[in-house]
């Protein structure tokens, strides 16, 4: 909210606020209809609203026409998928400089996100937001997804998507709570440190298989408490704390004199 607060006294602030108010009202109406998330279906009106939102919230770093500045990349051609991923996970607008943009509560509602996406998509051709069918885990092949995940993703995100470390304080986040749509978009656009897995190297069907595998992991572990699914280190820690803790406790009881 810092970015917003800082711009409270901007001369466009009343205008933006008014627009926001209108948008919220409009959003209530629109809520009944399915979100027209794709840039192709976006109206000119959406693009214009998106542009205003962009200039109020993003232009400081990305430049007034999203052409990029020293501190942030150009957004021409990144596509709606990229905007939707960054904004809907709260990574953008970025709160502070750090090794990487962190996930946080989203700053824009779905309507606004779609408008921002529509605006950026209008600047140049880029990956579009996937359809609901493309991210439908129930249509994916879990086994194929598992194989693809192992080869392409597990080295950073851990075997079941529990997350892992990268260099210099960066990290690959856990995937337990990431929405199917965001997973798809991340693969497609390669946000931040993550490489790009375009539709030629990992096909849309393969992406859906990967999503199916990750959704399957949310059932937990067949063996019981998953202990974070972090592998042998956490298992060792639990062996010492719980196992040796209980056993030494029992030994102390056995060695103690009865009252």
């Amino acid at each position, binding site marked *: 909210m810092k970015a917003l607060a800082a711009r409270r006294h901007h001369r466009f602030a009343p205008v933006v606020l008014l627009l926001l108010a209108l948008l919220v009202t409009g959003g209530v109406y629109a809520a009944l209809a399915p979100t027209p998330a794709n840039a192709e279906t976006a109206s000119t009106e959406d693009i214009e609203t998106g542009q205003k939102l962009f200039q109020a919230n993003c232009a400081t770093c990305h430049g007034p026409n999203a052409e990029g500045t020293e501190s942030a990349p150009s957004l021409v051609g990144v596509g709606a998928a990229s905007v939707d991923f960054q904004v809907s996970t709260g990574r953008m607008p970025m709160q502070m400089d750090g090794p990487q943009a962190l996930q946080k509560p989203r700053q824009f509602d779905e309507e606004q996100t779609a408008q921002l996406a529509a605006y950026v998509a209008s600047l140049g051709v880029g990956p579009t937001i996937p359809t609901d069918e493309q991210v439908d885990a129930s249509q994916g092949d879990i086994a194929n997804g598992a194989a*693809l995940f192992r080869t392409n993703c597990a080295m950073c995100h851990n075997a079941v998507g529990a997350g892992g470390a990268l260099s210099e304080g960066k990290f690959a986040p856990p995937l337990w709570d990431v929405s199917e749509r965001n997973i798809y978009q991340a693969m497609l656009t390669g946000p931040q440190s993550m490489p790009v897995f375009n539709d030629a190297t990992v096909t849309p069907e393969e992406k859906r298989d990967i999503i199916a595998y990750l959704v*399957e992991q949310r059932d937990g*572990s*067949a063996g019981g408490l998953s202990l974070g699914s972090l592998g042998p280190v956490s298992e060792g820690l639990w062996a010492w704390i719980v196992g040796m803790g209980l056993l030494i406790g029992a030994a102390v009881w056995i060695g103690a004199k009865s009252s």
Partner: protein
Amino acid sequence: MSDYQNPRSPESSHREVGHREQHGTLETFPDPGLPEHKSRMADRDPQAAKRGERQVALLFGISVIGTIASMVVYFALPPDGTTSGVRLSTLSLGLGIAFALLGIGFGAVHWAKVLMSDHEKVDERHPVASDAETRAVAVQELEAGVKDSGIARRGVLKGAVISALALFPLTIAVPLVSSVGGDWNVSKFKHTLWRSGTRLAIDPSGRPIRAADVTIGSVVHVIPDVSEEERQSHEWITEKSKAVVLLVRLDPRDIVSTQAPQGEDWAYDGIVAYSKICTHVGCPVALYEQQTHHLLCPCHQSTFDVADSCKVVFGPAKRPLPQLPITVDDEGYLVAQSDFHEPVGPSFWERLK
């Protein structure tokens, strides 16, 4: 001093350890002997003893219930192959067995603690060494045996026995050792499946890769393009262990250097391919950070700079990852120019030979 000369307990009357004469006075305290025995509640109060008995019986009873419960859940809750089904089966059976065992364990210990005598007993220790007489006899026996066998006098015999005993293990060791190493042809470390013109294919699907399909910032895990049957064979796993490659497309302007010698080009329009096998101890190096062009090994954090010949920028590896020279064929597919120009993977003694 007399205050401290307490009557010694019979157990410690023979004690001498620690006594030290200094300035003509006794310089250590005497052993006070075993502390007084404190009786337990169950020793003093028959009611408490009765209660203890009931508790022990209850614990054994819990064990019986645990056993019965584990039998019931064994038949009632078979693992059905789903995650939650297997988890429920494991959990219920585990709890049943745990109760069956812990009931016995806690019952027996509680019995010992509350109802069995808690008067400490004292055993004498004897020196570990056998007494002088026994040792003298033992030495005598040994010497007599040596004399009887004549091993000291008969030098030839001694040599023959030692040689025979020393040599016979070879009959087992030689066949064993010579067979376990396969063909011992360690020069295989230096060759992989890559040949001039071998297409680069996506792991694990085996689809060949067109240069145009790889966008900037993409990373592809690559295997040599071989037939489906070949990929089902066991030799394939061994070959794949050396042949896996990481393909990355960088903005050509970002590339600082490649390993290609003067006059050659091992990259194709920003696409570079490096061995995925770490030069440290052989883990697959695979964490590619798109923005920094750094490639990190999750096993020991060796970090390589893909934009700069995959040189080591951090961690325990010394050498850069070997580069696979690539180009495109007539159909636009990425192909290898040749095999790697050095052995992939960890260092070994004759690596440069």
